[in-house]
Structures are given as structure tokens and as C-alpha cells.
């Protein structure tokens, strides 16, 4: 069956350093892979997505990498700030009219 999962449940990074959050997926038929950020007490918020025919996409301070060979997705956050502390979810969207979310990684930025 389809699943989206994460390698590490928690990650602590020094402020100013770069962080990398990883995700494994099993559904090769997904059209898009997406990253969401959930701050404490709030709903998930869209960060960036990547289409399945791409291997890299950049946004503001974030880069998403897609490796279809090993079914691996990563989110790189450059020059982390305290406001980056949150739970990050990878998700996939295919032809089944829904988003399927992974289990989440808690990122903590250490001042």
C-alpha cells in the first residue's frame, strides 16, 4: 500500500546552521510531493511542492530534493531561524484525490 514516512522523528539544529529533513515514500504513482510545516497550536501550512518529474526545486531558504530511484524526499532549510522550529510533514498527492501525510519530524532550533 501507499505510505509516506520519515527517517527521524526529532532533529535539533543550531540557529544559523542548515537543516535537512528526510522522508521516504513507497507510492511511485504520486504526481506531487509536498512539505508542510506545523507550528505549535496551529494547522499545517504549505511550504513547497515538487512534481514527480523533477529532482530539485528551490524556494526562499528552502530546497526540496526528490530521488525517485530510492524513493526519497528531503527538505533543506538554509540558515535556520528560531521561527523554523516546528513539526515538518512530507505528503504525497496522486490520482486518489487526497493528500497523504507522513508521520512528521520535530525540528528544534537551538539559539
Amino acid at each position, binding site marked *: 500500500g501507499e505510505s509516506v514516512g520519515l527517517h527521524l522523528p526529532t532533529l535539533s539544529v543550531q540557529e544559523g546552521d542548515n537543516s535537512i529533513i528526510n522522508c521516504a515514500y513507497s507510492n511511485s504513482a504520486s504526481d506531487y510531493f509536498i512539505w508542510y510545516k506545523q507550528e505549535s497550536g496551529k*494547522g499545517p501550512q504549505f511550504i513547497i511542492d515538487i512534481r514527480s518529474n523533477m529532482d530539485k526545486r528551490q524556494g526562499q531558504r528552502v530546497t526540496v530534493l526528490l530521488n525517485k530511484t530510492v524513493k526519497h524526499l528531503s527538505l533543506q532549510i538554509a540558515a535556520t531561524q528560531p521561527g523554523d522550529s516546528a513539526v515538518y510533514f512530507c505528503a504525497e498527492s496522486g490520482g486518489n484525490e487526497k*493528500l497523504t501525510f507522513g*508521520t512528521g519530524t520535530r525540528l528544534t532550533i537551538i539559539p
Partner: protein
Amino acid sequence: DTAVSQTPKYLVTQMGNDKSIKCEQNLGHDTMYWYKQDSKKFLKIMFSYNNKELIINETVPNRFSPKSPDKAHLNLHINSLELGDSAVYFCASSQTTGGVEAFFGQGTRLTVV
């Protein structure tokens, strides 16, 4: 203006009670969703509606009944609440069904005692 708003934010109730959570979006989106997030932060879709029509029902117990009076509203009614229903429930909307960019409400923390 809040794009997706849901009420109440907190709900504490006893087992066996019936309760409702309301959701409204002012984004003009066609699709709305209900998600359930458990204590381990796992986020799972429950229902999706497109323009008031049910699209997805993810084998949710029939004690849960969504109602969409118009495409801007999707309410969730829960009958005979059980302890296991305790979770945070999120309403969301997207422009199209299964759209990659979904906008989430702030969540409703339901505690059944």
C-alpha cells in the same frame, strides 16, 4: 481575515455525548476536508467534499457525519462520542480536489472524558 476558520478551538465533553465542529473558508475553494491528528501528530484524512458533494470517506465510523450546506462550509457532527475520538480535528480547503496546497484551520482539540 482568517482563510479557514473552525469553531470551537477546544471542546471537552463526556462519553456518549453528541457534538459538532463548524468550519468555514473564505477562499472560494471548491474542495474542503476534515483531518484527524492523533497524539503522535499523525495526520489522516477523514472526509473530502467537492462543491458540497462527498468525494472521500476514509472508512470513518458512521458516528461521524459531515455536512456541507454550501461549498464554503463543512461541518462535522459526531454522535455517541468515545474516548478514542479525542484528537485534534482540522478542517482544510484547496482549490481543487487533492490539490497540493491545502489551507488548514487552526484545529479543534476534542477531549472526551
